């Protein structure tokens, strides 16, 4: 992916009514009402449509859940970690078990499923900071991290899931379980493996 993940998080100068120049973050959001389908998707998700609002929400959660540039210096490693997380979320689309029988039919529903992503239901400071009412005041590094998350979602939509990244769970931090990508560990649960064999 390398250079295709552009550090497009721009800080745009804007003068307020007192003539003071402030920098605002413009991370390159998806157009809210545009619709998208995942390219090269399996039958389970091939007919699902997502609007820009849904993908923006996905990007915000990805920004909150993945390693930022302050923690993980290498941009390619950050991009790889983001793609792995997106594959986890794609795995959970239109599937039971995460955590119950309810199937999530878009990324917002995946992310808002009970207990699944702490950053969402606990409104972590990082997740809250990327909201429409507050993202403009993100600093340069945070803006760039948010832009990378949006770009990662764009890449995922354009290319589809990666057969090398069939996971349904990830953890941050140290541990023995799972494949390490970036600063996170990824694996496919036993139930997930059975569901994968059934569906794909």
């Amino acid at each position, binding site marked *: 992916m390398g250079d295709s993940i552009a550090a497009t998080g721009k800080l745009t100068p804007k003068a307020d009514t007192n003539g003071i120049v402030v920098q605002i973050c413009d991370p390159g959001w998806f157009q809210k009402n545009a619709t998208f389908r995942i390219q090269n998707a399996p039958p389970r998700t091939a007919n699902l449509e997502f609007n820009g609002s849904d993908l923006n929400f996905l990007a915000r959660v990805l920004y909150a859940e993945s390693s930022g540039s302050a923690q993980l210096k290498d941009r390619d490693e950050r991009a790889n970690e983001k793609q792995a997380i997106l594959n986890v979320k794609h795995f959970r689309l239109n599937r039971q078990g995460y*955590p119950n029988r309810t199937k999530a039919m878009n990324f917002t529903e995946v992310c808002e499923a009970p*207990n*699944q992503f*702490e950053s969402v239901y*606990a409104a*972590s*400071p990082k997740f809250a900071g990327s909201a429409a009412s507050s993202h403009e005041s993100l600093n340069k590094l945070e803006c760039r991290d948010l832009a990378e998350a949006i770009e990662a979602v764009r890449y995922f939509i354009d290319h589809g899931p990666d057969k090398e990244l069939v996971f*349904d769970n990830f953890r941050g931090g140290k541990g023995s379980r799972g494949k390490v990508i970036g600063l996170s*560990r990824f694996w496919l649960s036993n*139930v997930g493996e059975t569901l994968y064999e059934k569906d794909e």
Partner: protein
Amino acid sequence: MKKTNSRFGLVIVSLCLLVPPIWAKDSENGISSTSAPVFEAFPAKTLTSPHKYASKIILATPRSKRYRTIISLEGRKEPNFAGHYRVVTWGCGTDCHGFAIVDRVTGIAFTDPSIEYVAGAMGNNEPRIDFRSNSRLLILNGLINDDREGKFFYEWTGKGLRLINRAPLLKEDLLDDATRRN
């Protein structure tokens, strides 16, 4: 002898009727257990209001230092546990939750050395870390450190968490017959 035995039996039956059970039916989240501790059985003293809370958070354990940003930010909010404590939670992946307990009076942040996080189990959507502002009971539903699974009942002693009961975790069977392996 018979009279003594029948009187003794009558006393025992009377006591059982008069004394409220400590382990009562827990109908939280629609799950019942005849041996589960309940929040009401572990009441916490609340501070008289208004009360001055600590302005500084003291990170007393290695894990609290590791998660200093979230603990320092969230630990200054209003108490939400056991009277004057604040439970601060953070995510560590999919259905993965770490937590600390901050004493809002002293500012000391506590983390349990044996609980790095509690992870969820597929088929169960109970709160992973369950607590009340007026109770000393704290319940973990899931897998502690992705290792031991269950419903773990802890009493907050003021200095630490004391495990008082453990029960199996109730889970929906998500694999229908068509997907089961033989």
